[in-house]
């Protein structure tokens, strides 16, 4: 499916980051149009577009905005989530590098719609150059009255501030992000209350992903109905797919929702690297269940990917060819989650470390017959509502899906293991290998 790019239309233009270039593309016209509208009308237009959150959860953005209570004495806050940390995802960075003003315009329109006068961009700490680009863009936009006091002579006032993260995957979760803005450890909050009612500084807050906000100017300019006509009925618009791993041409590609993974992998990316066979792919960032090669004809929209047994998530497609050892791949992912668990909930803190130890043991030829059962038990005990935030599910879904589709490789590794070790399950999850084997001695 080919179509004119919407979010990435400026790619290839050398000066695309400058305000002048953005204005030439019709930039900030949508902001002017929005400000002339009633905030309620802006929300309705975004609702009509059906645009769903691009950060992973897929919640309709317009509906999220409408949850903000009206006529409250408290201020409301807008937050742009640029803490892009889901392994396999690198689209927000691309948007900031290519078209920072489009992101700012989206933030400004969203802020106007929810009557916020302060917005924060929470950007991951590693994105130093991207932070500089945004600082520069904000400064340009303020000078020309697209931001600041009295935007475009309307009397509407908005300041956008940048808040740098400092290396914590969990801060991409909206309530952890809010804690982090407040200057605390990034520990997710219990919901409800939802941020739209009690968010940052105890005030109503909307948190939207960079890509979601980047869609907003286009929706306002060309209408919600126009956006809703792209993609599928329930997954509207275009989506940025970030393809990494074993493909000829990795990168960020924009395509309508519902484009199949075959088109994305074979046409956009030139197929699997070196003409090898596809073994599996993760369709929506590392937390999404892995799918075997035979699901490649799945359309990439929220519903179809769910039907195929995974999640569209953030659109981060990780491609693996037939050389990949699945026990190794799962160990790698679990290393990530064990490192990034914030430690607040026991099932996630202990479970992620424990699962990593078990998988690492299998890969080192020390697997035991009961290990697969242990992994499944951990996955049951740390997911589906057992933890405050979805990080529990995020490490359990890879476990269950790897076992479902590639369980044979785990069984083989276990069968080939030296059978001299005891079958006693480790009671205490321990991090380092050395400590694990010490605990082993005690277990015997």
């Amino acid at each position, binding site marked *: 499916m080919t179509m004119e790019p919407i979010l990435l239309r400026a790619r290839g233009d050398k000066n695309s980051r400058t305000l002048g270039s953005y204005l030439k593309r019709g930039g900030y016209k949508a902001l002017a149009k929005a400000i002339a509208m009633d905030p309620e009308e802006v929300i309705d237009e975004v609702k009509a577009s059906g645009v769903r959150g691009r950060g992973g959860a897929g919640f309709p953005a317009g509906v999220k905005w409408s949850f903000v209570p009206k006529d409250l004495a408290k201020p409301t806050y807008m937050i742009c989530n640029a803490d*892009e940390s889901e392994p396999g995802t690198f689209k927000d960075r691309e948007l900031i590098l290519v078209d920072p003003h489009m992101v700012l315009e989206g933030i400004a329109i969203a802020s106007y719609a929810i009557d916020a006068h302060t917005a924060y961009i929470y950007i991951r*700490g*590693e994105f130093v150059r991207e932070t500089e680009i945004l600082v520069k863009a904000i*400064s340009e936009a303020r000078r020309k009255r697209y931001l600041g006091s009295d935007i475009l002579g309307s009397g509407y006032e908005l300041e956008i501030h940048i808040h*740098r993260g400092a290396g914590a995957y969990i801060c991409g979760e909206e309530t952890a992000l809010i804690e982090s803005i407040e200057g*605390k450890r990034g520990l997710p909050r219990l919901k409800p209350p939802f941020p739209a009612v009690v968010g940052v500084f105890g005030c109503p807050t909307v948190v939207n992903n960079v890509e979601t906000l980047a869609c907003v100017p286009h929706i306002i300019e060309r209408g919600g109905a126009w956006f809703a006509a792209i993609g599928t009925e329930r997954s509207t618009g275009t989506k940025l797919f970030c393809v*990494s791993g074993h493909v000829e041409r990795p990168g960020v590609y924009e395509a309508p929702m519902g484009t199949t993974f075959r088109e994305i992998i074979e046409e956009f990316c030139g197929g699997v690297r070196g003409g090898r066979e596809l073994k599996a792919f993760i369709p929506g960032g*590392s937390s999404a269940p892995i799918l075997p090669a035979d699901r490649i004809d799945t359309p990439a929209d929220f519903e179809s990917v769910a039907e195929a047994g995974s999640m569209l998530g953030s659109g981060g497609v*990780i491609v693996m060819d037939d050389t990949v050892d699945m026990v190794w791949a799962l160990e790698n992912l679990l290393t990530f989650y064990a490192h990034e668990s914030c430690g607040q909930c026991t099932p996630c803190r202990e479970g992620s470390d424990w699962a990593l130890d078990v998988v690492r043991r299998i890969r080192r030829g020390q697997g035991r017959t009961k290990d697969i059962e242990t992994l499944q038990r951990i996955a049951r005990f740390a997911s589906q509502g057992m933890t405050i935030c979805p990080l529990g599910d995020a490490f359990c879904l890879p476990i269950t899906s790897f076992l479902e589709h590639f369980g044979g490789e785990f069984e083989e590794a276990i069968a080939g293991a030296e059978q001299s070790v005891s079958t006693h399950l480790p009671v205490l999850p321990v991090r380092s290998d050395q400590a694990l084997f010490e605990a082993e001695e005690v277990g015997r």
Partner: protein
Amino acid sequence: MTEAGTLPLTVATVEVVEEPTFDDFMESEIKRILKRYPDHGAALLPVLWLCQERWGWISAGIMRAVGQRLDLSPAFVEGVASFYTMYLLRPPGKYLLQVCTTLSCQLCGTSGIVDHLKEKLGIDFGETTKDGRFTLVDVQCLGACGEAPVVQINNDYYTNLTEKCLDEILDGLGE
């Protein structure tokens, strides 16, 4: 300069100071940071960044000074600073090499880069070369998976790395 952030984001020469004090520039930056938030506690992350840009790392003394300036207990400041992996609680080398070791980078050959770096520099992850030039650390996903393998050296991403081009990059870094 805007209200949005501090520019330029530089990497400081690493200094060990017993009693850190905020000079006029830092004091004016802190005032600007405080203006962005309705609550002074929210300034903690940006002020820690400011300190790391000034002294190169976050020592116990810096945590105490920050706590005093923002009216937060030193224990609270340490709790926050130790939660986030990018605040360096020990002085790093002049060049901090952060190698992404998450799945996409690994699929594209990061382990070769890691072996090469360890051998070339004679250090393991978490260590600094004797001359104080390089610190090597393994990090989780840097969010540039399409250009794997990726290494972040101080503030910059170096992408699509091979052993050869990494050598050239390291040799091109100043003393």
